[in-house]
């Protein structure tokens, strides 16, 4: 194996041309008649899919690319596969490439699986003899022994992709390009695919993997590149890059949540709430009702630095802060909060009455805080109820599910509640503990935006 890197990408930029929208309907005739052929071929606007990307992948390294949709991951893969050419920059791949961009892309539906395997193999660069040699193995791998002589059009989509994958990996490439195709068929087969990729790794092949599955990227890759808006956001050690990426995504989700949910009640308070008369204010909108003697004017979710957030990780402190205003002095009042999962299952609910606080007096503006020291929930979206009501339950202002927040976690445990727990093993059970690592640190937002 040569000492050259398997893949060299140097300052590569790919600009797609976007033609004016009439492009599809324009005819050659009209182009010729108006003499606008040349000007029509000039792009109206351009779209930069990949910009100034440089990296090298040494031989035998599994290189992962992560990023949101439209961040240029797939374009990068197509560039490497040679399907599209870079607008600028240098691309070099040393060795035979096999690209798993779309499985079974070259299959002809009318002819049998057997013939398609032969043709697909040749398309991918095998000789006829090599195809014959590997044929049994391919069919074996695809688990299609009984169907190999049936036309491919009769295959289920799972069978189709299995056969495509089987051919592609038996080409025995030096560089394997994979685009998010591991969701192939059933659980067992996708494990088989992963095993096969693992085998490639062990045999010192270079793998270039574009994926949305961060778990997979972390497990399989030696190095990870994070693409954002066509540029390299970060690259290097998988764990570090993935953490960085998650932090960024959480930050983005935070902003999104703030837009979508955060200020909902505020808007209602300012705009929609009918203020009929000064004395008998009555509030009733969807998700919000009450007599209006006390009004919840603002609800904020705060982290341990008292900064407003909508995404938290398990173990963090979450503070619910209510700003209320009572139009007249009252003595019978209870503050309450309730947590629900997105599908409405109650997670937890409490109020000051249940917890035996005795209400004395509420007048004018007031701030109420409920600190949850450790938010031990599993990943998901949660809805928050807040309320001020009388001891008998008559509401002053009740907000049902107007606020939400998200819990993000690297551990994909299930359920609702994550009790604090510890595993231990004795006797014949031997397990290797995961490397200790902190949950995401969402304070790194500044870092993420700096790098962008």
């Amino acid at each position, binding site marked *: 194996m040569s000492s050259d890197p398997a893949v060299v990408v140097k300052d590569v930029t790919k600009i797609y*041309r976007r033609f004016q929208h009439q492009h599809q309907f324009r005819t050659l005739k009209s182009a010729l008649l108006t003499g606008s052929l040349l000007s029509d071929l000039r792009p109206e606007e351009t779209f930069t899919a990949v910009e100034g990307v440089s990296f090298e992948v040494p031989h035998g390294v599994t290189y992962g690319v992560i990023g949101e949709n439209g961040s240029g991951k797939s374009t990068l893969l197509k560039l490497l596969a040679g399907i599209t050419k870079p607008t600028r920059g240098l691309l070099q791949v040393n060795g035979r490439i096999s690209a798993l961009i779309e499985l079974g892309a070259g299959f002809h539906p009318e002819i049998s699986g057997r013939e398609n395997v032969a043709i697909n193999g040749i398309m991918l660069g095998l000789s006829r003899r090599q195809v014959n040699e590997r044929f049994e193995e391919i069919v074996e791998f695809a688990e299609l022994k009984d169907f190999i002589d049936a036309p491919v059009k009769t295959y289920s989509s799972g069978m189709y992709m299995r056969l495509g994958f089987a051919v592609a990996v038996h080409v025995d490439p030096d560089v394997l390009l994979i685009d998010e195709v591991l969701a192939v068929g059933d659980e067992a087969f996708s494990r088989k695919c992963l095993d096969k990729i693992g085998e490639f790794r062990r045999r010192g092949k270079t793998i270039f993997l574009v994926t949305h599955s961060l778990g997979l990227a972390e497990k399989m890759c030696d190095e990870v590149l994070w693409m954002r808006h066509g540029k390299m956001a970060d690259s290097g050690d998988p764990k570090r890059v993935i953490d960085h990426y998650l932090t960024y995504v959480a930050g983005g989700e935070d902003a999104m949540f703030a837009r979508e949910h955060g200020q909902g009640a505020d808007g209602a308070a300012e705009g929609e709430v009918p203020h009929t008369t000064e004395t008998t204010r009555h509030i009733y909108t969807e998700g919000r009702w009450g007599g209006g003697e006390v009004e919840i004017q603002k609800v904020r979710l705060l982290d341990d630095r008292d900064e407003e957030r909508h995404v938290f990780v398990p173990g963090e402190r979450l503070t619910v802060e209510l700003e209320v205003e009572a139009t007249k002095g009252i003595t019978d009042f209870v503050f309450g909060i309730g947590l629900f999962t997105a599908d409405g299952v109650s997670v937890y609910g409490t109020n000051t009455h249940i917890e035996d606080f005795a209400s004395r007096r509420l007048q004018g503006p007031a701030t109420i805080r409920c600190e949850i020291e450790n938010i031990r929930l599993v990943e998901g979206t949660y809805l928050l109820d807040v309320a001020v009501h009388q001891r008998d339950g008559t509401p002053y202002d009740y907000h049902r599910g107007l606020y939400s927040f998200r819990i993000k976690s690297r551990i994909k445990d299930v359920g609702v509640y994550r009790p604090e727990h510890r595993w231990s093993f004795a006797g014949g059970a031997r397990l290797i503990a995961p490397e200790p690592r902190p949950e995401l640190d969402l304070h790194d937002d500044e870092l993420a935006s700096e790098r962008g």
Partner: protein
Amino acid sequence: MIAQLVQLFRYRLLIQTLVSRELKARYRGSVLGFLWSFVNPLLMLLTYALVFTYVMRTGKGSATPYWLFLFVGILPWTWFNAAVVEASGVLMSSGGLIKKVLFPAEVLPVVTVMANMVHFSLGLPILLFFLILQGKLTLTALLLPLPIIVQFIFTLGLALFVSALTVHFRDVQDILNHVVHLWFWASPVIYVYGEQNVQLRIALRFNPLTHIMLSYQQILFWGKFDHWRGLALTAILGLIGVAIGAFVFDRLRDTLAEEV
């Protein structure tokens, strides 16, 4: 251009496989299967024989039997026609390959031309059989590969050109149907070259297919070939055509994956 031809030669296995796939897929599911390649021209021939022997007796002209003369021209014409029309759509219909697999796109129009050539050559035995039956066949028939080669070159250039162009201008496909139709009437397929007035004959000579068709007819039907110069000129023209076609294809190649 030489480099491109070398490239094509490197892909010969791929081309060969795709041609055979094309042929297999075409008759897949039909009862007669591959036999259709023989039956199709046979039925066509019989239809012409019937029509021109009993329905439309064309007394004029020296070509007798006319249905056989007609068939000598129709068979290569069908190859040309089908190859060019199919080539115009081949890049789109195989868009998946171009977009998703590292695939030499120029192989596709080549496959189209070749697959149709195979159909043509499968029709040849039928034609030769009837030529022998009518006592038309002479030793001149040994020259048959010549016009076939020239036609292949000429068709290939055109196929490369239209296939790449259609990706950018979809209407090439529609225009092409009419162009080819017009071309048919402008070529001596159903009429005998030499029976027109001088101006018309000069005009016909500008049509490369005139020389190709004339060569087929001389070699197979008339049993006497003297159109060397015309055929040689057409061959040169065909090579220039391939060069232009390959050039255009090459220029548009980079955008194919995006536009298909």
